[in-house]
């Protein structure tokens, strides 16, 4: 049974693409055949984070318009042969996104993939709505900051009202909270919302907390998703995210400053 998982947030720049890349790569490392789709038409970025930007020939919109087959457009990851990337189009024709068009591509992907990860653009326009429409599960990426939490709440409302599952009265989308760019020291000084605060406000299950980390910048420079940087705290936090998503019961890590400064001393992250 294939699963479609949307990575969404409402607010821009909170870590959706970083999370999509590491989540998809982590699932592939665990042996699951995974496709990750960039829904950010006009602002393609997932290819850079996955390190396959020079191998893009066809894109998602080409497939929808019948200008290329899915097989031609999917880019196989260099390090994991069960991981594929479907890049966004750089042209601005967002109108290509119709429920029928996107639905056909998702259905075809469902035939051969275990997981289909949809990297949503920011906002609540067409691209974002299409990314969440077909979802079975959702990762709600949230920063510990007021506007991000409010936008996440907004997106939760849309998942519950405007998705296929909502419209067809099926079992609701399973929602998971992913708090990223978490800074333990700023939480301790009272500058930043705590994990408990965010959970209480949004009322969904916490899947993972990803600390703010310099390793994320290095990973995007190199085009290697940070989950593969096993010595970094954020890489380990993404590995935990994948394990918990697959059903393992692991304690949350990197929530207090002690552990972070210990890692800092060791690895300079």
């Amino acid at each position, binding site marked *: 049974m294939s699963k479609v998982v949307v990575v969404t947030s409402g607010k821009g720049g909170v870590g959706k693409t970083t999370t999509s890349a590491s989540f998809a790569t982590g699932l592939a490392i665990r042996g699951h055949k995974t496709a990750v789709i960039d829904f950010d038409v006009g602002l393609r970025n997932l290819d850079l984070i996955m390190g396959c930007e*020079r191998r893009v020939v066809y894109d998602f919109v080409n497939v929808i318009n019948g200008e290329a087959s899915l097989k031609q457009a999917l880019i196989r990851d260099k390090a994991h042969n069960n991981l594929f990337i479907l890049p966004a189009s750089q042209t601005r024709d967002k109108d290509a996104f119709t429920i029928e068009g996107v639905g056909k591509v998702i259905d075809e992907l469902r035939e051969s993939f275990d997981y289909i990860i949809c990297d949503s653009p920011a906002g609540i326009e067409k691209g974002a709505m299409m990314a969440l429409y077909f979802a079975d599960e959702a990762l709600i990426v949230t920063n510990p900051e007021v506007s991000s939490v409010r936008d996440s709440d907004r997106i939760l409302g849309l998942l519950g009202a405007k998705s296929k599952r909502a419209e067809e009265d099926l079992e609701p989308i399973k929602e998971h909270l992913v708090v990223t760019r978490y800074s333990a020291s700023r939480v301790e000084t009272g500058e930043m919302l705590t994990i408990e605060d965010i959970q209480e406000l949004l009322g969904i299950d916490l899947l993972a907390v990803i600390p703010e980390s310099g390793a994320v910048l*290095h990973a995007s420079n190199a085009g290697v998703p940070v989950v*593969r940087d096993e010595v970094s705290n954020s890489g380990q936090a993404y590995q935990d995210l994948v394990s918990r998503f697959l059903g393992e019961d692991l304690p949350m890590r990197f929530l207090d400053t002690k552990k972070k400064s210990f890692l800092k001393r060791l690895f300079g992250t």
Partner: protein
Amino acid sequence: MMSILDYLTRRRKKTASVAKERLQLILSREHATDSGPDYLPALQKELLAVISKYTHIDLDDIKINLEKDGDCEILELNIALPEKQNEVA
């Protein structure tokens, strides 16, 4: 896994220069596409599709460049063919 780890730790200080190289390549490719004739993106795609139909070539081995020489535009296509020509079934 070890090699990636090595890669990331060893190169930690130098990842910015890797980023710059990657960006220079991809931006020049995108600019060439933007400034060229309208049919250029489609032409590039179809060329690449044809090439990959006959050889198992990695797209990284194909370099496309659009240059202006006076009034003339030159589309340069540089393909590094694999040593053994293995045909696609």
